[in-house]
């Protein structure tokens, strides 16, 4: 690499001036001439038959252009789920509604106030039906969510290892044997990993414009997957990929919420084509929890068996996962991501069995971490309980049971997946040997001596991300249902312009991750061209090479690697041109400080301007070298990546009220090589906020009738900066060996490592009172109740 300062250096985010000054372009900022606005009539019932829809009053309002129901759009068919297991959501409710907030009709009007008024004026008669809301009840199949499905259990994922029934039977036998031994202890925790409402600062928004003259759609959408959306629209309307242009401008938060093709994205395109006007829909904050996917929603039992000296002999995770009423993009595949990491970074036999269960609630799908925070939560909670039970240091128990560093390369997890690189004890040791961790323990002991309830929690984690491998396509993740067949590969195009500025065009786009900066660093490092002369273009289905999108902490590892390889190709070609101009050998050309020079003769230089100029004047090029200076690369990873880390928290609990104060939080994360430490730290900060938010505040609460009681930000408590301590971040670096950058991915690690760290700390604080577990979120009422129950039990 020609410069070391750019790659791995702290570079301020180049995208921030526009975002901070409010001049960034979001979908709702786009206003087209003649634009109309859509609003939705939504079901107030969790389960009901629609007996009539009367839109006459709405249609009579001046400025209301149309009211559409399923009868108008049935011919378009449903948006197909990527993993079409369960009930696919119809474009609009078809005779029956299956969750509160399900869209029943779409109103299109001249302004958004009128659209809302008209939606309120649509009269829908419902015949309420009994709702199946409780997850455990749903799993019994006593009452069906969908009459036409055989069971509420849509899918069962089982592994130990995955895909090998004989080996799994052997695993189960080993675990049962261990349980039956006299000299082992068995620890079991049933816990709720509650439903969460992912809350992006920018709710979803979409604007579609059909141009009948060109026969093309232009669609602006706040999406993580613009190319897939283009494919879905093409397929739905029977046009070609060439007839759809999707633009994802600035996206104000994704977290997996925008990793779906949503019905409203199709419906506004339909309305635009029908009415001959651009049509926009911007989701309101109030309707978002019921119109955008939710996350988590597991009830599971984690059981661990081990010896009294800390050797873990087996682990079981058996649970129910709430899918909601309809399957959307990945819905039933999300628990599978939990299966992936069910055995964490450990070597003990593991059996995992997860039932994906339908209920009359909003769909769940990918929310930051998606299956992995849930799985790691159970594993790290029960290991903590085991350490407590045998009286061993929680760090020591973990260290003793890790897959050892010398198992890499080639390590296969007990649930059957190949892991790239790992040195788990290194991250754990970096944490527990830090001054911060020692201070935490000392502070806890000091507070306890004062009669306070204080606790330190520890958790380690492994994550799987950077999806890849391309072969996932063979498991059904092909995106072909969206009319956009593609593997989990990455793409990047690097073009040196005639003035020697560089345009980088990539297949993924940011929803806050800082692609503009990170990709500039990757390219600047290869070419020796300053960051200021590099521009990154993303999120445009026409301009960008095909990409599957930004999710699963995959952009840098996969599309970043493609861009790295494209930059290498450009560099190789530039070296040819420079060698020609300098009359030197190609092998002797090196790049630095805005140009090329001959190794050993730094005076023999040629600037990038000269190289670029010559590139675009083919008659000046050496024989056999084509004109132009650009390259495209596809990177096809052989595996996903497996980051890991260790987290610790110090808490104080007010025993009189149950109030939990998070006093200190330390992390050691290992995401492989780091391109920009500041961006990596920022990703960890955000991930921690959302993980701690789950631990302490957030919960989607439904009543027995399926009404969402926490549907507004008044009742759905999100963490704010004021609720969180200053995070203390450290890292170890274990490069991945499956991509040229050696990077792994850091978008979700903070979320995956943190929730159980906080719960472990609170349980540690309450140990003197005999509390063994408290479910999340650790609301004061729940912590206080746990204290009362423990007192009652004494």
């Amino acid at each position, binding site marked *: 690499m020609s410069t070391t300062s750019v790659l791995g250096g702290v570079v301020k985010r180049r995208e921030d001036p526009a975002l901070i000054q409010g001049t960034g372009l979001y979908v709702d900022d786009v206003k087209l001439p003649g634009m109309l606005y859509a609003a939705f009539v939504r079901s107030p019932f969790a389960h009901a038959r629609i007996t009539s829809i009367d839109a006459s009053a709405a249609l009579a309002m001046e400025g209301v252009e149309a009211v559409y129901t399923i009868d108008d759009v049935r011919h378009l068919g449903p948006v197909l789920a990527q993993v079409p297991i369960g009930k696919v959501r119809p474009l609009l409710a078809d005779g029956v509604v299956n969750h509160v907030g399900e869209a029943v009709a779409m109103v299109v009007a001249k302004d958004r*106030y009128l659209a809302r008024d008209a939606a309120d004026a649509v009269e829908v008669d419902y015949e309420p039906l009994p709702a199946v809301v409780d997850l455990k009840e749903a799993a019994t199949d006593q009452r069906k969510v969908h009459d036409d499905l055989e069971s509420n259990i849509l899918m069962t994922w089982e592994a130990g290892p995955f895909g090998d029934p004989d080996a799994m039977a052997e695993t189960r036998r080993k675990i049962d044997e261990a349980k039956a031994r006299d000299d082992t202890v068995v620890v079991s925790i049933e816990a709720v990993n509650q439903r969460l409402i992912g809350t992006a600062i920018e709710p979803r928004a979409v604007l579609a414009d059909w141009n009948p003259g060109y026969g093309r759609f232009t669609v602006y959408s706040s999406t993580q997957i613009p190319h897939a959306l283009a494919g879905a629209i093409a397929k739905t309307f029977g046009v070609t990929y060439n007839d759809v242009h999707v633009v994802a401008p600035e996206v104000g938060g994704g977290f997996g919420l925008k990793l779906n093709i949503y019905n409203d994205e199709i419906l506004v395109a339909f309305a635009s084509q029908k009415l001959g006007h651009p049509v926009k829909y911007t989701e309101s904050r109030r309707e978002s929890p019921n119109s955008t996917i939710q996350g988590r929603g597991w009830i599971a039992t984690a059981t661990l068996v081990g010896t009294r000296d800390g050797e873990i002999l087996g682990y079981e995770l058996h649970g129910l996962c709430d899918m909601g009423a309809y399957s959307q993009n990945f819905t039933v595949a999300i628990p599978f991501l939990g299966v992936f990491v069910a055995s964490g970074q450990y070597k003990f036999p593991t059996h995992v069995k997860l039932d994906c269960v339908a209920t009359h609630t909003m769909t769940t799908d990918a929310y930051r971490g998606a299956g992995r925070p849930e799985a790691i939560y159970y594993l790290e909670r029960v290991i903590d309980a085991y350490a407590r039970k045998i009286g061993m240091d929680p760090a020591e128990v973990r260290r003793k049971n890790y897959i050892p560093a010398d198992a890499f390369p080639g390590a296969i997890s007990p649930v059957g997946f190949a892991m790239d690189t790992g040195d788990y004890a290194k991250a754990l040791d970096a944490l527990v040997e830090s001054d911060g961790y020692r201070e935490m323990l000392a502070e806890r002991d000091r507070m306890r001596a004062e009669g306070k309830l204080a606790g330190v929690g520890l958790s380690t984690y492994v994550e799987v991300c950077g999806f890849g491998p391309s072969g996932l396509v063979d498991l059904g993740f092909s995106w072909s249902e969206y009319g956009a067949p593609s593997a989990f590969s990455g793409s990047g195009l690097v073009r040196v312009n005639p003035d020697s500025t560089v345009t980088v065009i990539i297949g993924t786009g940011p929803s806050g991750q800082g692609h503009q900066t990170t990709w500039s660093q990757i390219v600047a490092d290869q070419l020796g061209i300053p960051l200021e002369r590099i521009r990154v273009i993303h999120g445009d289905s026409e301009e960008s090479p095909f990409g599957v999108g930004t999710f699963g902490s995959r952009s840098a590892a996969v599309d970043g690697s493609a861009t790295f390889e494209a930059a290498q190709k450009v560099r190789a070609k530039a070296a040819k041109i420079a060698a020609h101009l300098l009359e030197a050998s190609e092998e002797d050309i090196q790049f630095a400080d805005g140009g090329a020079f001959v190794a050993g003769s730094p005076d023999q230089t040629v600037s990038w301007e000269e190289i670029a100029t010559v590139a675009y004047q083919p008659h000046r090029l050496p024989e056999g070298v084509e004109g132009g200076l650009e390259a495209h690369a596809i990177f096809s990873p052989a595996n996903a990546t497996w980051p890991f880390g260790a987290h610790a928290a110090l808490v104080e609990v007010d025993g009189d009220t149950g109030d939990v104060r998070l006093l200190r939080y330390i992390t050691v994360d290992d995401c492989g090589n780091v391109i920009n430490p500041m961006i990596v730290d920022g990703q960890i900060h955000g991930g921690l906020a959302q993980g701690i938010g789950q631990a302490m505040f957030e919960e989607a609460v439904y009543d027995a009738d399926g009404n969402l009681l926490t549907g507004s930000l008044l009742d759905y408590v999100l963490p*704010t900066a004021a609720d969180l301590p200053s995070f203390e971040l450290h890292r170890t670096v274990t490069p991945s060996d499956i991509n040229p950058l050696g990077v792994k991915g850091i978008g979700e690690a903070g979320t995956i490592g943190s929730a159980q760290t906080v719960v472990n700390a609170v349980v540690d604080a309450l140990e003197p009172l005999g509390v063994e577990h408290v479910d999340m979120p650790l609301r*004061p009422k729940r912590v206080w*109740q746990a204290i009362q129950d423990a007192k009652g039990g004494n």
Partner: protein
Amino acid sequence: MFPRSFEYVAPADLAEAAEALASAEFAKVMSGGMSLIPMMKLRLLSPDLVVDIGKIRGLDQIEDRGDAIAIGALVRHAQTAASDAVPAALRTAAAWTGDTQVRNRGTTVGSVAHADIAADQPAAVLALGATMVARSASGTREIPADEFFVDALTTALEPGEILAEIRIPKAGGGSAYEKLGRRGGHTDYAVAGAAAWVQRSNGSISDCRVALTGVGTKPTLAEGVAEALIGTDGSASAVEAAAARATEGVTLLEDLYGSEEYKAHLAKVMTARALTQAIANA
């Protein structure tokens, strides 16, 4: 989140505002708009007319009237929180209301007039025995705090009345406010809160008022607590015994943040903490 259509006026003085208020079938007064606007956007409230008193001069003052401190209708929470003239219970309650943006925009009087069941400042003005000064087209009416809070989001204000001022008697003694907020500590709406005011003379508690918020349908005076504490020496054990009576006569309301049992417990804890602090301040 789009309100239904409504008319809007921004009168120049209170008389004009009162007139405007009387002119519409369903009019609402807006000061900081921190509660009214969200309710309108959620379509929980759809007034025909919004009377914005924000342009009226002279309402943004905290005045010492000799026997009382008068808080004008446009005094922001942040102003109340920063004023040495305001008793500690109300000052603290204002400081723990909302977040920085809300405290810079929302008003103490508006919060009291809105009467949210989990708001902080209504409990404080009730414990401090404040007088509400209501202005209407037909004149001015004084309402004692004890009679002001009727039910959830419901006060003794008549449709044509504007809460123009809150007067807090300069009765001496000490006061304090304590709460557990929804996100823990003192942040967010009160899961339970208690405002206390005490007067000491000759080494014993001669007068006391405690008001609770967050636990029932309205801010409520805990009369049993006052009864138990008056005449005692205000010691820790006296406070503890008095606080045990916090929920006497209170209709407890279970919500997402607590069961009746938990709220009853918290009411006692917060009462004891507020009393201890108030006695220290007295």
